[in-house]
């Protein structure tokens, strides 16, 4: 143990490091290895047959398409909400600021049934949309609505601190010199918050792709149409088709890793920019 670390007067390295790596291995790494090994035990053509089946492709299209759309909606409205909370004073601002984290704290099954009853044909909002000819619950629109809700806090909370970094005197100076609001937005505000916007977008997307609980209630769960990939995995497991489930899980895991890597790169980029600006 001593050889891998630098000396310190503080005690407890062996105990805490040992417990950490032991617990991490038991709870995270061994189960993860089980998934990878199960996938590796398949033949190539067997693997491709599962992950490229029409039903799987249909589920990717919905999962990734709806997640992308939801993250884009959150990019726009997350910015608007963060801007409102940072720049304007109005009654109830602090309450709303605290409630932004609700989708984090609210169990997904609760948001699932609640959204479904609000957006169903006889629901508070669903009935209005129904008269306009828009069906939300049990369609891909409903899936997008659920994914937007769970991604919202990621978008708002990423942008909020960045908006505080924007130097207001630069905005004032630009305005005094005759710059229009769009020019100020494009040249002063956007460059400061861009890394945060992209981080929020990616975080919201990553969360949405894997989401299960809030979606299955509002989606119709029809194969090829409103069936998300996590649901297809659950169905395969219920059929005791462990390999089929593992293969689909492996594909999603690889995609999550790519997304995670993107987030880390974006955050490193954001930190470098902030340092550069403050210098």
């Amino acid at each position: 143990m001593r050889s891998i670390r630098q000396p310190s007067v503080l005690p407890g390295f062996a105990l805490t490091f040992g417990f950490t790596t032991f617990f991490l291995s038991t709870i995270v790494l061994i189960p993860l290895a089980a998934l990878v090994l199960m996938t590796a035990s398949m033949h190539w053509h067997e693997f491709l047959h599962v992950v490229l089946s029409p039903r799987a492709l249909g589920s990717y299209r919905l999962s990734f398409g709806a997640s992308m759309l939801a993250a884009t909606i959150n990019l726009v409205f997350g910015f608007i909400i963060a801007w409102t909370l940072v720049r304007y004073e109005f009654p109830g601002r602090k309450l709303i600021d605290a409630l932004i984290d609700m989708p984090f704290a609210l169990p997904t099954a609760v948001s699932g049934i609640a959204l479904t009853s609000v957006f169903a044909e006889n629901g508070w909002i669903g009935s209005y949309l129904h008269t306009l000819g828009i069906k939300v619950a049990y369609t891909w629109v409903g899936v997008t609505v659920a994914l937007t809700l769970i991604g919202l806090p990621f978008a708002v909370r990423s942008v909020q601190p960045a908006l505080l970094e924007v130097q207001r005197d630069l905005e004032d100076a630009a305005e005094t010199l005759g710059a229009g609001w769009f020019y100020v937005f494009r040249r002063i505000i956007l460059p400061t918050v861009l890394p945060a916007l992209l981080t929020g977008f990616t975080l919201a997307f990553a969360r949405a792709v894997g989401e299960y609980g809030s979606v299955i209630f509002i989606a119709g769960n029809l194969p090829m149409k409103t069936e998300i990939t996590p649901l297809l995995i659950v169905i395969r497991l219920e059929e005791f088709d462990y390999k089929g489930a593992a293969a689909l899980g492996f594909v999603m895991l690889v995609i999550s890793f790519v997304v995670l890597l993107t987030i880390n790169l974006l955050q490193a980029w954001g930190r470098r920019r902030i340092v550069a600006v403050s210098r």
Partner: protein
Amino acid sequence: MAAGTHALGLEDLDTRPGRDTIVSSLVRWSFIGVSLAFLAALLFAPLATVFVMALQHGLRAYFHSFSDPDTTAAIRLTLLTALVVVPINTVFGLAASWAIAKFEFKGKSFLITMIDLPLAVSPVISGMMYVLLFGLHGWFGAWLQEHDISIIFAVPGIMLATMFVTFPYVARELIPLMQQVGNDEEEAAMTLGAGAWITFFRVTLPKVRWGLVYGVILCNARAMGEFGAVSVVSGHIRGLTNTMPLHIEILYNEYNFVGAFAVASLLTLLALLTLIVKTLVERTGYRRR
């Protein structure tokens, strides 16, 4: 991310030139209007609907739904799961943050990445990994059956899946906090002759207490509310392996809306309580990194 920090941007609002022009107040009110409308449709309406649906047949029907033995069994199992999982993950979080923040060693950033990993994994995949290990056709399935041990479709599986999804919550709150507060006081205590445990309980723990509270309440909220991972390993056996979120699904699919939303209302109150504690912790000046 703390609520208190926003005051920074607001202080100079009153003195800013051009604040009261028609255009700027029009912009201001349209921003506020769009934000509130968006949140009302997506967040406030669903929150309100939980209570409206739960109370649609009055208070008696609402309270009556909790006398169902399957519902009370689900509440008990959820409490038991949180009671086991949260303390274990808290001890893990303390150990991991001590090892990572107090010492320099090789592979540290890799370790941090691995601790954060469960946050990036879909809940369904989290549950599935344990099915692949311990399920009937899993790696250890045959051995477990031989020895008459059930993990999947039983309470241990639910605990394991919950432990996985809530694994990073305490650790990722404490690691940056301990790194930030530094080691000076601990080193002073040790030099003055305090023992290791005394140093930990009397010096370190008070320094990081708000981060600990923050991590624990978020861990608890997730542990009690987890659906996807638990759904995969539970087997949905009523009265035995049904947690509150899973019970909501069963009641909802049976069109027992009062029952489903009554259980949902408890979890919603828990979420509100979590947010209140979180906001109070942020009031102390604790800022999430």
